[in-house]
């Protein structure tokens, strides 16, 4: 009963934290709510008229929604990338930020599920895909696998985060024997969600652009740059706006890891391009459409090159110690990586996979206004989830907000160990 009582206090305390903030906080939350409302309106319109209000058609049957979904699965997977060095090398400065990585993973997954929901033609039949209740075509369908691993990963991260924060709030020590295995489990789970998502495309022999054995490694490599890119910026913001202490060393170490994965990602892209362009089979048309255009259709060309140039520039910025340690170039690198991977694993993956279509027809797809509005709404929802979770989590992590301390009251002395709750 005490547990239930305390948990209720934990929830009401969290609510207290997320509903109070300074003007900037309200403005930011308000802005996200407005975007969500616009997205909601656009989605209501899509529900009424059907997916015909998008620019997807039989030729290009997946588009902006599924592109964003794929990119965000990478972000969700990569947030946990920080856990790997923290635990395998027992490297303290990074350990402190793994909880933030988990929060990012949860937010990314919320957006992933949102993008899947808005993409399906019959959202009212969502229960058909639920295990036990519906009839999941498992283990044959890769999409069935994806549904399972994404939800398990979401639940896993949510449980770990909630438990750790609850312990911090009640000023109790978490049970290490319980948490460490779960955190360690999240590493292979993170790899698996992105691998399964890659296999979703990889397994389709009908689409030569996706039917490449290095698709899953490419997914992982690119994700392991984009996820931390977001996190590095968030860490700097948090450092400035809260009392959370994150060492420069941790940030620079993550940036160094990103340089290696970006280099590997560029190498894999080059390997793919070599195979296609050197052998010149009829399957070359898809990558040709992406990088050079086909028969006068070249919507994707500038984006494809921008993605590669951004990636290469960021790789160099993060590789050279001097630019890695300069905050201006570091942040520029983060933005470049984010943009590069967003193009590559979003539209740069989905559209050339389906263009030309199975019978050779070229239908040039660009998202409709509805698709953009709905996507903006889902991104706003994800950012809102992330913001609210951070708002509640950071004071708890710092020991500033516990069951004994009234909300808002400053801690007598700055916390010695920035995050006592980290396993």
């Amino acid at each position: 009963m005490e547990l239930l009582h305390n948990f209720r206090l934990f929830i009401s305390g969290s609510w207290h934290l997320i509903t109070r903030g300074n003007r900037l906080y309200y403005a930011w939350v308000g802005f996200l709510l407005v975007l969500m409302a616009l997205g909601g309106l656009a989605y209501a319109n899509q529900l009424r008229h059907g997916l015909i209000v998008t620019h997807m058609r039989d030729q290009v049957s997946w588009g902006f929604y599924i592109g964003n979904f794929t990119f965000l699965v990478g972000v969700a997977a990569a947030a946990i990338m920080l856990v790997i060095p923290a635990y395998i090398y027992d490297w303290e400065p990074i350990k402190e930020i793994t909880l933030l990585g988990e929060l990012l993973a949860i937010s990314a997954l919320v957006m992933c599920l949102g993008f899947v929901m808005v993409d399906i033609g019959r959202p009212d039949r969502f229960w058909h895909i639920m295990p036990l209740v519906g009839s999941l075509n498992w283990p044959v369908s890769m999409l069935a696998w994806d549904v399972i691993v994404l939800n398990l990963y979401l639940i896993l991260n949510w449980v770990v985060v909630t438990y750790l924060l609850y312990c911090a709030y009640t000023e109790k020590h978490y049970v290490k024997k319980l948490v460490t295995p779960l955190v360690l489990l999240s590493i292979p789970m993170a790899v698996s969600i992105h691998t399964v998502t890659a296999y979703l495309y990889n397994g389709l022999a009908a689409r030569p652009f996706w039917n490449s054995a290095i698709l899953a490694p490419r997914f992982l490599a690119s994700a392991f740059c984009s996820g931390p890119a977001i996190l590095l910026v968030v860490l700097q913001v948090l450092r400035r706006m809260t009392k959370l202490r994150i060492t420069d060393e941790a940030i620079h170490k993550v940036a160094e890891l990103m340089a290696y994965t970006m280099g590997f990602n560029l190498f894999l892209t080059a390997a793919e391009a070599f195979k296609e362009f050197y052998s010149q089979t009829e399957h070359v048309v898809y990558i040709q459409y992406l990088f050079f255009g086909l028969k006068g259709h070249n919507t994707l060309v500038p984006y494809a090159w921008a993605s590669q140039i951004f990636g290469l520039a960021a790789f160099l910025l993060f590789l050279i110690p001097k630019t890695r340690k300069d905050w201006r170039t570091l942040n520029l690198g983060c933005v470049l990586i984010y943009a590069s991977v967003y193009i590559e694993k979003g539209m740069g993956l989905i559209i050339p996979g389906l263009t030309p279509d199975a019978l050779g027809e070229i239908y040039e797809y660009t998202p409709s206004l509805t698709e953009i509005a709905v996507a903006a709404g889902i991104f706003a929802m994800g950012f809102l989830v992330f913001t609210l979770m951070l708002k509640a989590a950071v004071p708890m992590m710092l020991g500033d907000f516990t069951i004994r301390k009234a909300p808002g009251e400053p801690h007598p002395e700055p916390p010695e160990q920035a995050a006592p709750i980290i396993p």
Partner: protein
Amino acid sequence: MSCGSGNSDKPCSCAGNSVATTTAASEPDPTRRAMIATGIAAVASILTGCDKKTFDEFTQHNFRELGKAEINDIIARLEAEYSADYGKPVHVGTEPAMQGVVFGYALDLSRCVGCRRCVHACVKENNQSRDPEIQWIKVLQMDKEEGVSLQHADPYYTPKEVPEEGHFYMPVQCQQCRNPPCVKACPVGATWQEPDGITVIDYNWCIGCRYCMAACPYGARHFNWGEPNLPKDEMNPDTHYLGNRPRRKGVVEKCTFCVQRTRKGQYPACLEVCPTGSRKFGNLMDPKSEIRYVLENKRVFLFKEDLNTKPKFFYFYGV
């Protein structure tokens, strides 16, 4: 070119004698599942306050897991609904696959002139949306110099008269693969291959994720992007649950070799209308069938053979 004269309308048989199901009882413990589903649906229904028809539609389970009584209820519901919608008695059949029958189709590339009569007869027979028009058959105009090359195929040819000099025509529809990638892809088992080799969709179970469309190498699957627009007077009331009954928006549809006709011993609509006799259809299990004659005596090829989808739709050169 003159297109559009389809087959004559079938007299409708509205006796409503729904035959037994094609259920393959392979799913474990359907009753428990059904109970859970019904429970959830009941809650949903109370929360949303919807009527009985919507409720029944929402809770309807995968066709392959339904019992005979449930199917009869569903057919009665659908027939009433369609009859009201289209202002005429509509029959929804559930004829199962015939014993010892596996359907095969062969198309003579040396005869086809690209008139697209098959395309329009198909639309008429199978109750596709008219606006935007969904076509299950796509005729590709190819260069004779290039052979069967999709990079040189034009599906939108519009000359005054066909065939055009220097071109040949290749109609593409569902290849009814023996190893169908679309069936593998579907996350909810809403599409499957029947014992007579026809891959069908339960339009009431499809969630519209379109993964099957990405998986199909033949562009044979089509999505109802908007609410299908089927004028009352053009609606063909002789339908099959797994075939040409009217669809709603948000689900995928495809060629079923006219399951509503072929399971009653008739030819598919596309074959009947073909003016050149390019289309051959029959039972692959019957050694004396025309389709077997074609396979054994003509030069036959499979479209995208390297994908190992094992189509039961064959292309051949008759002359």
